[in-house]
């Protein structure tokens, strides 16, 4: 209750901004062709939601994000654990990773389109590539930071390598892994939207660009609102999941 009151001024400002925008457009201060009144965008948004038209593009984009995120995270964690645990693996892969990491993944989209066309495979690969490196780097950092006393304790109990990795190293480096995955989730959405825009087909990203190019400005803003909500929801859900998974950390204890 108190926290709700705390944010009251901010929410009031938001409402005032939207009302001000409505007034400015009505008064002719902003051209309707560029910025339709928020009420008109709201009506367009309502039409998309009520008719169910929003579902297909939304799920197309979400499918890309989830598939690419899952593949990129799984590979990133596997490579990070291998490099963090076996020094020989680190020496083998480190130069390659350092060479590939600074390449902007967005610039790889045109190259991937040559090979994989403009379909799902290209888009999921783009997303997975963007996710892979931050997850890898954070996993590596987490695995290297595992308390050596814990490792000794595991060895004293006669645990094998698989058991140590599964029950000790992975849980202990989970905070780092999840932090990397949180950054990667934002990147995944960016790459999914970009790949849709450049390939000229698919979900939300394509629609936003397409509506702008065909001057259906109200619909452009309506889809943009849906995409913003997706971004906000993904981030919030991940934070909640992260807090649940790390409930044993002191900072998360009630």
């Amino acid at each position, binding site marked *: 209750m108190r926290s709700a009151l*705390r*944010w009251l*001024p*901010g*929410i009031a*400002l*938001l409402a005032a*901004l939207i009302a001000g925008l409505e007034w400015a457009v009505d008064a002719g201060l902003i051209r309707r*062709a*560029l*910025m339709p009144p928020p009420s008109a965008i709201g009506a367009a948004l309502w039409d998309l939601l009520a008719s169910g038209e929003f579902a297909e593009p939304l799920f197309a984009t979400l499918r890309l994000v989830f598939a690419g995120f899952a593949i990129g995270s799984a590979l990133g964690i596997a490579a990070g654990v291998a490099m963090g645990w076996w020094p*020989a693996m680190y*020496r*083998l*892969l*480190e*130069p*390659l990773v350092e*060479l*590939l990491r*600074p*390449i*902007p*993944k*967005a*610039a*790889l*989209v*045109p*190259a991937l*389109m*040559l*090979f994989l066309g403009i379909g799902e495979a290209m888009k999921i690969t783009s997303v997975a590539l963007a996710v892979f490196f931050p997850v890898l780097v954070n996993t590596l950092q987490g695995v290297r930071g595992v308390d050596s006393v814990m490792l000794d304790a595991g060895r004293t109990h006669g645990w094998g390598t698989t058991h140590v990795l599964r029950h000790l190293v992975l849980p202990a480096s989970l905070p780092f892994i999840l932090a990397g995955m949180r950054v990667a989730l*934002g990147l995944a*959405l*960016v790459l*999914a*939207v*970009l790949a849709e*825009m*450049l390939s000229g087909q698919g979900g*939300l*990203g394509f629609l*936003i*660009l397409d*509506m*702008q*190019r065909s001057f259906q*400005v109200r619909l*452009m*803003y309506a889809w*943009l609102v849906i*995409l*913003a909500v997706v*971004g*906000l929801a*993904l*981030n919030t859900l991940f934070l909640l999941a992260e807090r649940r998974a790390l409930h044993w950390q002191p900072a998360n204890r009630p």
Partner: protein
Amino acid sequence: MIGQLRNASGIGLVLGLLLLWEASARLGWVASPNWPPVSAVLAALLRDVMTGEIPTLVGGTLWRMAAGLFAGGLAGVVVGLGFALLPFVARLFAPVVELLRPIPVPAVIPPLVLFLGLDNTMKVTVVALTVFFPVLTNTVQGVRAVEADALAMGRTFGIGALRRVVFIVLPASLPYILAGFRVALALALVVTVVAEMIAGEQGVGHYLVMMQFAGRAEEIYATVLLLGVLGYALNRAFLLVERRMIHWWFALGRQSAA
């Protein structure tokens, strides 16, 4: 010398993969116009650099990136100081900021095109928007980490509020602010290229898309390679500047702030 030998396996792997790339293209194991040998890619890079085509494009891209970095960074520091020092300002503006933050950058390009057109203004604005958020977050963190004693001492010496901000708060939070800028720098280069790819006819991004339409694989790989080197060099250069600007932070035995 021993350190170099220790890394031999890794460098061997990189060289082996490059060799495999070259062989697979030359010997027709991968028979595709999209798979030129690595030597042809390097030759294309050299050719396009020598003709001056690539340097001009890269120069334009870097200029837009720098302008966006400056504008967005300045706004991020100023708003961050406001958020951290005046709680009411934070409560007033935080909901607006938090609603805008999760929008994926490429998606703000179409509406900005409507307002600002296809050229520099739009691209610089997109970059500035991208840079704004990490710098803002880090500035707020940095100001919160300023030691209370330092501020109390300033007050004891009768230093005015504004001068305290400029001479105590800003320098003390600089390590955090710079860490935010380093994150922002990597984003800025990518986003400049993305904006160029989606709209307008400028810079490296547009060149990439053109080469893709023309099916010129060598040029595409050469450009991607160049962007990788550029990103790496920018990060290295920034680390050097950071070390110089906040040598006291490292002298205290602290690591980079983020």
